[in-house]
């Protein structure tokens, strides 16, 4: 988590004290979650995420990193969600009073369609409540909430995933979850075999793209491929709109330069390179095996198998 070091006093690692403090902060006791249960929940979350949050070269003790990570979690919301999943009555009342109505407005925001919104919200609520019992055991989707982000944001995300699975299936051959379970990513929309594209141009473009940071590539893809607005991208990245605009300007100028340079490095003249770049390549078949792909995707997330099932549509 984006926190600085804790004072030395906390490093001495009174693990029990830390756990007790976290437990107290979470207010889990009010929902009938015992300290032991809560610690077990935190342990589970730590196992899931900590390897990606601990700097390998860090001199800090693992205990400290753990405490720090836990302190960054939304403990109260975590306690509420897990207590709901465990069927605590009071937790449910709290959850319903806080989120039941919001679910509908979220759904409306996502679907922009009253009928679908009601359907989506109800279906998610059922999942949260865990009516889709497997083997008689109620399994609430809330059990997969880990407090990394706000509970409300998580609800929106889960709902958006559900929406994409449910209402965009016609666009996909397989759902998010199915693919995830197979450990695959999505197929490109036009998975045609490669042919006569100018290999040099592709190579130069790939090279130029690969030099960008992941955030830059995300920005490019969001803006040019997905047609997101500057405002949306800005909010996603926590930037101001004008920063995104400036970044896009910088990126497009820079990319052009880099590609031209790349082409020239492959022996093209300046005129040839410019012409190659300006050629409309939209009609060209795509070669899906790109260097960009090979370079990227090395690290994402652990624990996908679990969360894929949890986050999926249980039906």
């Amino acid at each position: 988590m984006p926190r600085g070091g804790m004072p030395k006093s906390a490093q001495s690692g009174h693990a029990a004290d830390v756990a007790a403090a976290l437990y107290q902060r979470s207010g889990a006791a009010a929902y009938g979650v015992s300290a032991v249960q809560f610690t077990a929940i935190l342990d589970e979350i730590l196992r899931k995420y900590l390897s990606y949050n601990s700097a390998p070269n860090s001199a800090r003790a693992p205990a400290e990193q753990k405490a720090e990570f836990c302190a960054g979690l939304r403990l109260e919301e975590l306690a509420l969600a897990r207590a709901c999943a465990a069927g605590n009555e009071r937790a449910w009342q709290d959850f319903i009073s806080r989120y039941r109505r919001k679910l509908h407005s979220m759904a409306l925001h996502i679907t922009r369609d009253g009928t679908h919104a009601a359907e989506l919200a109800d279906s998610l609520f059922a999942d949260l409540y865990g009516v889709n019992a497997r083997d008689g055991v109620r399994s609430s989707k809330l059990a997969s909430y880990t407090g990394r982000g706000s509970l409300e944001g998580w609800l929106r995300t889960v709902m958006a995933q559900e929406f994409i699975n449910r209402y965009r299936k016609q666009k996909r051959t397989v759902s998010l979850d199915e693919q995830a379970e197979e450990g695959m990513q999505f197929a490109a929309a036009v998975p045609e075999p490669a042919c006569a594209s100018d290999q040099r141009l592709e190579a130069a473009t790939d090279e130029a793209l690969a030099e960008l940071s992941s955030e830059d590539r995300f920005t490019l893809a969001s803006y040019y491929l997905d047609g997101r607005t500057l405002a949306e991208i800005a909010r996603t990245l926590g930037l101001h709109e004008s920063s995104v605009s400036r970044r896009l300007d910088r990126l497009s100028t820079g990319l052009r330069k880099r590609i031209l340079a790349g082409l020239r490095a492959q022996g093209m003249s300046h005129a040839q390179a410019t012409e190659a770049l300006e050629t409309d390549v939209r009609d060209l078949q795509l070669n899906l095996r790109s260097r960009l792909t090979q370079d990227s995707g090395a690290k994402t997330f652990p624990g996908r198998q679990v969360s894929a099932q949890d986050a999926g549509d249980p039906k």
Partner: protein
Amino acid sequence: MTEVPKIVYDRLRAALPEPALPEPAGPERAHPDADVLTAFAEQALSATERDGVLEHLALCEDCREVIALALPAADIVAAPLAAETEAVRATVSRAGAPAPHKLSFAWPSLRWAALAAGIAVVAAVLLVRPGKLNQATLPSVNPQVATTAPPASGPQIASSPVPSSPIASSSTNQSSVSAKTDEAPPTSELRLSKKLKAGQVVTPSHQTESGMLLADNKKDSGLADKLSAAPSPRARALDAPIVGRSTEAVEVSGAAVAVEVAPSADGSLVARNDAPAIEKAKPALQEMDVNGLQKTQAAVVPGPARSQARNMMSAVKLAPTASQTLTHNVAWAIAAGVLQRSLDSGQSWQNALRADHPLLCYASHDDDVWTGGQAGALFHSANRGVTWVQVQPSIKAQPLSSDITHIDLRGDVRGDVRGPAQIVLSTSNNEIWSSSDGGTTWEKK
């Protein structure tokens, strides 16, 4: 927007994995789970983890869509407030005692031009009508005060014993030179959030809060009243210097007027107006700078004495738009060390407070919001985050320096904040600090 070459579209699109070459099923190919995506969108991930997510998102259209769909509804309703909240970036002075008062201001949306105009008008008025103007008011309005400075900056004002010519302390009792410096704890310093008003020209009506802001300079005697009415620590501290310096000439310079303007959205722009010091020659000047504890006042009678009031670092903060109509759906959250506020029951969020140290926790009760963070950072807002005051809990001059990990508000904080509200802080070194008087005095358990 500059277009990118078409090939870039294609290669971006082509960057999707090759379906004909199934990767070995491994976690690294999987979508980030909902928790991580949420934390990403809320800027709550560590840099490493965020990079990983971005790497995935750059390649995964579906996850990008999830993120986009899951964005909170646009902040149309809260837009003006969003701008305002940005302005409330914590520039707070380490006042030894917080001012636990209700603040309800009508912020005029003055901007640079208005400020410059205000300064110009003040100067003009002073020059043109030196005789008539008895009090040029530079009332401090914004109690949010900038960050700490070394103790040395304590009593800056009255301590400049310009011997030029002792000002007649006769004409009217208080309108004689009275340099009043609150020197309470030297740790506090004088960085003031001030709104300059040009006399009454640009004067919107302010509901100033009596303890913290003394914007009313017209009544000289009013000052004394207010001082005595001020919370005890301040009043106490004021006594001595007043007497000692009442006959000293005081140098006043409006030199470093730091202006912090909130632009409509782009974070908080801090602009400094190091422009010409406002030197007031003969005209009487009454200037007040107020922050949590420290207050300086210089009132000069027209006379031979050329006096300058020197305010180091007066921070002027202009928060646009009055927000009298805050809804009651205010919700709070901490994301990545920043306190965020939602005015629409969580549909949309704006940064409400960004402090020097990451914030870790908050507690709110109606209009009252407390938020704490690393290194003992503690802030209080009595008006739903419109304005903030930094509180430095200390016991016997031992300040709280460990991280504040949890805040509890107990008792009834409704109504008078100085009521029985109890604030309980949990710290990273497992101490419990509590205050029953709105943060003025603290006990450790």
